Every structure is written in structure tokens, then in C-alpha cells.
């Protein structure tokens, strides 16, 4: 069968991927720069295509709690928003993590804090990778750097979320959401039948038959010792995720003397900078974390033995740089370069930053 290629916005690709991956539901609330997700879904009438439920909720808070309700039934449910909306969802995300439910959340990040701007940013790194809501929990965080990855990470994200019964976040930004690129569209997957769902998710609250005990979905335990045991169980799960699910891309690292560490759209900007640096004879490579949690610490730790320094490029005042420093453990200098508030760093600025902060530093 010939591949189906389309030119799509990142936001549209996420929406199409949700339908194609056999998702059961999308609940969301419009916010720039990701409103195309729900607009596309509504235009596609997925209830006719696959029976998928799509609903515009009254708020981000309601939307994430609809996700909770759907996920607690074992359903494949997804929501998306942008930074201020993701902040509103944090309570629900914490509950979903606490109740060990699978779901997919896409954050098309814009500049903050507060209402901030609607332009692209990567300033939600801490929020996404260190918890975000209350309590000790982690999300699996996937950082797409292309529209194709926006598409592909939906199915990967759902798979991971069900494998570990943990919410998964796709951390995009205004650039990835708004740009159009070539996307290879996969086949339509069938939505699971109720029998398949019950087999996959015996814990789902779908009505208690006489043949089993009741299923309860909760994040509450008033007995401190039991809650502690549960927290430690979560830690074990996160350790397993760290061991098995790290993803990253190495670009021209084999002969590199300098490494740019960048994810998402910053990685794309950095690729241009890398070309400019190499044209000047500065052997530069890129480590592109694809999973931000789990973070690809080991590859950075190992690279530190044979390169001269690292520059992180983020559209933030410096968030991922802390994880890079932890990974490198002071073996080599690690500096940060970023533009913020919706300003996008130019490849030339990145070149200057590497030359001044690392080579000249």
C-alpha cells in the first residue's frame, strides 16, 4: 500500500493521530496556539468515523476531569491545551497520576508566566518533568521536534500510558503546533471492543458483575503507612520507566567537540546553528532528548568524557540545563542559551552563544 502523505499542522497531526490510533475520547477547551486540535476533530466528526467522543468542555478543569472519568473506565482519552490551560489541569493530572490512570495530554507551550504571550516558548519544562501538580509523581514527557513526531507520539504516548498506567504528556510548543510539514499517515486502528478493554484493563470501572469484586478508582488513602507504600510503588514504576523508556537522537555527535542539547523546536533551530558552526570548522553535535522524563542522562554523562563542553538551547531562562548539569556531573562546562517570552532564538544567536559561552568561556 502506498504511504499516505499529507501536509499538516502539528496540531492537526495530533488530532488525526488520535482518531487513527483508535482513541475513545478527546475532551478539551480552546486556547491559542493549539485550538486547531479540537477544531480539526470537530470538523472530522470522529463520532462518525470511529465512534470517538469529542466534547468541548466548559473549562480546562472540566476537560481534564472528563479525561479522569474516561480513563477510569479504561478508555483511551486525550486532552490538549497550552500553558495557562495546562496549569488549570494540574489538579486533575495529579489525581490521574495518583489513581494510576492512562491518558495523553498535549501541551502546546506558549510564553509565561501568567497570561504571558501566545508565541512559542519552552518554559513549562519544570512543570512537565518535575510534577506540575501536587504530590510525588512524574509524567512521561515526549518532546516532538517535527509534525511527523507530533503524529507518531500520539500512539507511542497512548501505548506508554497504558503500559505503565501513567499519564503521558506530549510537550510541544507554538512552533511545532502551528507549522505544517509532511506527515506520513498510518492506518486507522480499530477502537477496542468492551471485551478487549476489560481484558486490557481489568481495573476499569465499567460496572461490577457478580463475578468480581468492585473496582474503585481513587487516589485517596487516609492511612499514612499505606499511602507511603503507594508512593514507593510509584517510585518503582518511575525507576522502571527510567530504565526502559529513555529516547533521544544524536546528530553528528561522533566527531563532535561541542554538544548542543536541545529538544523540540529548539533542536530544529540548533540544527541550523550546527550547520553554520560546522561550516566554520567548529565540530558541533546535537543531543536531542525525545523523552524529557525519563531524561537521557547517561548519554550525556558518557559524552562528557570526550567533548569540550555543552550548550543547552531552550526557549526558557534555563530549565533543562539543570538536568544536563546533573547528568554531566561537572565533568565539563554546561551553559544555557535561550530567548523567552515568545521570542525565538535565531540560529546565528546560537552560534554566538556557543562561541562565547563555551569555546571562549
Amino acid at each position, binding site marked *: 500500500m502506498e504511504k499516505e*502523505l*499529507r*501536509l499538516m499542522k502539528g496540531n492537526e497531526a495530533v488530532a488525526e493521530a488520535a482518531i487513527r490510533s483508535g482513541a475513545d475520547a478527546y475532551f478539551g477547551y480552546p486556547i*491559542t*496556539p493549539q485550538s486547531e486540535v479540537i477544531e480539526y476533530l470537530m470538523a472530522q466528526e470522529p463520532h462518525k468515523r470511529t465512534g470517538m467522543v469529542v466534547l468541548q468542555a466548559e473549562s480546562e478543569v472540566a476537560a481534564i476531569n472528563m479525561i479522569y472519568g474516561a480513563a477510569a473506565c479504561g478508555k483511551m482519552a486525550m486532552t490538549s491545551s497550552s500553558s495557562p490551560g495546562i496549569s488549570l489541569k494540574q489538579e486533575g493530572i495529579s489525581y490521574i497520576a495518583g489513581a494510576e490512570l492512562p491518558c495523553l495530554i498535549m501541551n502546546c507551550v506558549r510564553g509565561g508566566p501568567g497570561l504571558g*504571550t*501566545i*508565541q512559542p516558548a519552552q518554559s513549562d519544562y519544570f512543570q512537565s518533568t518535575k510534577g506540575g501538580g501536587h504530590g510525588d509523581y512524574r509524567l512521561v514527557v515526549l518532546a516532538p521536534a517535527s509534525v511527523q513526531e507530533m503524529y507518531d507520539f500520539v500512539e507511542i504516548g497512548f501505548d506508554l500510558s497504558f503500559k505503565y498506567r501513567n499519564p503521558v504528556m506530549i510537550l510541544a510548543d*507554538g*512552533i511545532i503546533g*502551528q*507549522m*505544517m*510539514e*509532511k506527515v506520513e499517515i498510518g492506518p486507522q486502528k480499530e477502537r477496542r471492543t468492551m471485551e478487549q478493554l476489560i481484558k486490557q484493563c481489568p481495573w476499569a470501572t465499567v460496572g461490577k458483575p457478580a463475578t468480581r469484586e468492585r473496582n474503585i478508582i481513587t487516589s485517596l488513602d487516609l492511612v499514612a503507612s499505606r499511602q507511603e507504600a503507594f508512593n514507593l510503588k510509584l517510585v518503582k514504576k518511575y525507576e522502571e520507566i527510567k530504565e526502559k523508556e529513555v529516547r533521544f537522537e544524536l546528530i553528528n555527535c561522533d566527531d563532535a567537540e561541542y554538544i548542543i542539547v536541545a529538544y523540540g*523546536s529548539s533542536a*530544529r*533551530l540548533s*540544527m*541550523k546553528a*550546527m*550547520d553554520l558552526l560546522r561550516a566554520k570548522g567548529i565540530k558541533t553535535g546535537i543531543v536531542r532528548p525525545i523523552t524529557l522524563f525519563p531524561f537521557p542522562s547517561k548519554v550525556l554523562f558518557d559524552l562528557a568524557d570526550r567533548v569540550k563542553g555543552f550548550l543547552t538551547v531552550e526557549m526558557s531562562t534555563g530549565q533543562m540545563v539543570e538536568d544536563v548539569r546533573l547528568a554531566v556531573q561537572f565533568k565539563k562546562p554546561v551553559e544555557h542559551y535561550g530567548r523567552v517570552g515568545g521570542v*525565538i532564538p*535565531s*540560529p*546565528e544567536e546560537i552560534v554566538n552563544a556557543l562561541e562565547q559561552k563555551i569555546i571562549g568561556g
Partner: protein
Amino acid sequence: MTEEIIIAGFGGQGVLSMGKILAYSGLMQGQEVSWMPSYGPEMRGGTSNVTVIISDERISSPILTKYDTAIILNQQSLDKFECMVKPGGTLLYDPNGITRHPERKDITIYKVAATQKATELGAVKVFNMMVLGSYLKIKPIVKMENVIKGLKKSIPARNHHLIPMNEQAIEIGMKEVEKV
């Protein structure tokens, strides 16, 4: 081959759809493409621009500060983007409403009076296709057959009967373009 293009004008000129058709044409030709619009407050009534990249290789940054070609459709955009054309690059503009014409000597400048022509022909809706035609005349990076395929992909099926009109507009644009 990598061609990095900025198309800039004001809202309602069809800047974004012109970029989309160009990108889709590249896609139909088997190339890598990216289309990155300006979005946000400026798209509501103000300026509108889109960066289109067509390449034989994996595209790095979809956002650029230097372009091989700038397609300029109003004064504001000319003021902003003229200096961002790479030395030896190309600038194509519509002189309609332009009071300060491009001045650079190290780039090749073309103009097409597409607004005027489109008004004369009563074909304001396909103004942007005339400009696209002019660009393709200067830089035939995509074959006409792929442009038609791109058009079919970007225009909703209910409007496919308008494709011949778009095709004619492209041809007019090809004829009307002149080197400055």
C-alpha cells in the same frame, strides 16, 4: 537543493494559502517541506507572513532570519524583510502601494503588478496565484504538474472546479513578472 522563502503581506491577500500550495507542491514532488506562519495578534487584520522551506534534505529550523527568496506584498513587509534576503538571493514584489522600492544591489529583484492585473481581470481571489506564478517563473523549483496536485490537496474538494482558474492565474503571473 534547499530553498528558503518568506512570503509576506497583509491579512486577506492569501499569503498563507499561497505558501501552503507551494509547500504542498514540493511535497507532491517528493521533497521535504515546512510551512511556518506568523500567528497570533498580528494575523488579525495586520501583517501576515509565512516561511516556506523546500529541500531535498531534512529541514532544520522552520524559522529563519535569512532567506533565499522574499515575496513581498506590502510596504511594511518590504521594510522588514528586504534586509533579510541572503546576498545573491531573490526579491519578488508587487509594486501596488509601494512608496519606497527595494534598494539592494546584491540581490536580484523582480516585480509583478499582480494586484492591478487581478483587478483588471476581475480575479482578485486568485491574486496570490498570480504571484505564485511569477515566483515559479523565476525559480521553477516545482513542476507545474505538482503545483496542480498541490492545489488539489490544499483546496477543499467542493472548490475543485476553481482549479482551472487558479492555473490560469499562475500562467498570467508567469507572463507578467519582470526583472527590475
